[in-house]
C-alpha cells in the first residue's frame, strides 16, 4: 500500500474522531477543522511509510504538535500586543515591522522549544539583549561556567534543528 493510500484510509476512518479531539482541545470548531486538515497534509508530506499499528495515537501525536504551534502563535501575538501597549505611541513600530518581528519570534521560539528554562533564558539574554556572559551570570545568579555551557548547548540544539534535514 502506498503512503498516499494509507493516508487516505487514515483520513476516511479517523478524520471525524480527530476533528472532535482537536475541538475538545481548542474549543473552536473552525480551528479544529483547519488543524485536522493540516494534520493530514503533514502526513502526506512525509517521505517514509506510515506506522499504522496505532493510528489514533499516531494522529494525536502529529495533531498535538500542530495545536502547540497554533497556541504558540496566539501566545506570542498576545504577549507582543501587551508589550506594545506599554510603549508610548511614538515608539510603536509600524504594522509591517510588527508582523515581521512576530514572524521572526515565532521561528526562534520554535527553535528553542524543548530547551531547559535556564538554558533558554541565558541564550535569550545574549541574543536579544546582547549581554556579556558575565552580566548574564550575575543577572541569573549562576556561575560564568554554567552560562558558557548553557549558551553553547542552546546553539548546538539550534544547529541540529537547522541542519537536521541534511544529516
Amino acid at each position, binding site marked *: 500500500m502506498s503512503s498516499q493510500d494509507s493516508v487516505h484510509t487514515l483520513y476516511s476512518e479517523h478524520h471525524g474522531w480527530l476533528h472532535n479531539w482537536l475541538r475538545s482541545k481548542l474549543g473552536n470548531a473552525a480551528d479544529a477543522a483547519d488543524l485536522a486538515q493540516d494534520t493530514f497534509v503533514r502526513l502526506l508530506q512525509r517521505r517514509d511509510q506510515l506506522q499504522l499499528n496505532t493510528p489514533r495515537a499516531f494522529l494525536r501525536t502529529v495533531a498535538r504538535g500542530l495545536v502547540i504551534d497554533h*497556541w504558540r502563535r496566539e501566545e506570542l501575538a498576545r504577549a507582543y500586543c501587551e508589550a506594545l501597549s506599554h510603549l508610548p505611541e511614538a515608539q510603536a513600530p509600524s504594522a509591517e515591522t510588527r508582523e515581521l518581528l*512576530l514572524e521572526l519570534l515565532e521561528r526562534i521560539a520554535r527553535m528553542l522549544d524543548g530547551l531547559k528554562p535556564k538554558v533558554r533564558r541565558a541564550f535569550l539574554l545574549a541574543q536579544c539583549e*546582547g549581554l556579556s556572559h558575565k552580566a548574564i551570570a550575575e543577572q541569573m545568579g549562576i556561575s560564568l561556567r554554567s552560562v558558557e555551557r548553557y549558551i553553547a548547548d542552546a546553539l548546538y540544539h539550534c544547529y541540529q534543528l537547522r541542519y537536521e534535514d541534511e544529516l
Partner: protein
Amino acid sequence: MSAAQPSATVVKQAIQWMLRLRESGPDQRLQRKCEQWREAHPEHERAWQRVLSLHQDLDLRAIPGAGLALHTLETSERRLHRRQALKLLGGAALIGSASWLSKDLQLLTDWRSDYSTGTGERRSVTLPDGSLLQLNTRSAADLAFDARQRLIRLNHGELMLTCSDAQANGRPLLVQTRDALLEGVNGRFTVRQRDDCTQVSVSAGQVALHGAGSSALHWLDSGQHWSIDAHGPRVVEQPDMDAAAWADGLIVTGNMRLADFVAEVARYRPGFLSCSDDVADLRLSGVYRLADTDALLELLPQTLPVRLHQRTRWWVRLERAA
C-alpha cells in the same frame, strides 16, 4: 552527502570559537588562532560557516523593534506551558482560546482569514464558481459566497482574480478592500491594499468600481491602472512597475526609484531591507526574479553605484558604493 557533514565534535568546537570571539571583543591574536583552526581542515571551515550563519539568524539585537523580543518570548513561553499542562496533558479544562485575543489587531487577521500567505509565499485557489484567486506575499482574504453574491474580502496584501462565470447563477463577483468595492465582469485584474489607498490594474476584461454612494460607478478598462483612496478614484498614467508580474514570480520595473524598488522587494523576504537616502532616487528598469531575493539584491551593484551592507541575514541595507 553525509560525508560532507561536520561531526558533532567539530560543530561544538566551532561554537566555542564563535562564542569566545564574541565575548572577547576585538582580539587579533584570538582571531588569528580561530583562522588557523578554520584552515586546518575543510570540515572546520564548513562547520564555522554554518555556525556563523545560524548565529546571525538568531541575532535579534540588530533588528529594529526587537526591544520587546525577550519579554514577548518569555511571557508567551510561560503561558504556552500552562496551556499545554492544562489542556493537552492534564484535564478537560476548556477555555475558548480565540476569545483571549483582541481581534482588531491587523497582525492577527491572517490567522482568522480563509486564505492567507506568509512572507515570500504565493497561493492559487480555484473558487467554488470556477474563478481563480491568486494571493501574493503576506496577504489575507476571506470568502463570502452565498445565494446573492460572490464576495472576496481582501484584508491585506494583494490578489489577482481571473473571473469565471461557470457557476455564477447571476451572482456578482465582488472584491472588497478598505477603499473600494470592485466588481469583476470578466477577464483578469489585480487588487492591492496599500496603507493609504487601493490599487487596481486590469490585465484583461473590465472591472466596475462601485462608489461609496449608490450612484457613482466607474468602469476600469483593460490595460488601465487606478488608485482609489478617500478622495476617490484616479487613473495612474505611467506605473513604474508591472502590477501583475508577481503572479509569474517576477518584478518588472520601468524607471522605478530605488527606494520604491527596495520597499517592493522587502515584501517578499523576512527581515529588514532598506536603502540610504543618497541612493533612494536612483532609477532602475529591468526584470527581476522573486524566487531568490538574496541573488536579486546581489545583482544590483552590477548596474547601480550601490553596495550591500549586510549586518545579518535579516538586516540588509543598500548604500552608495565608495
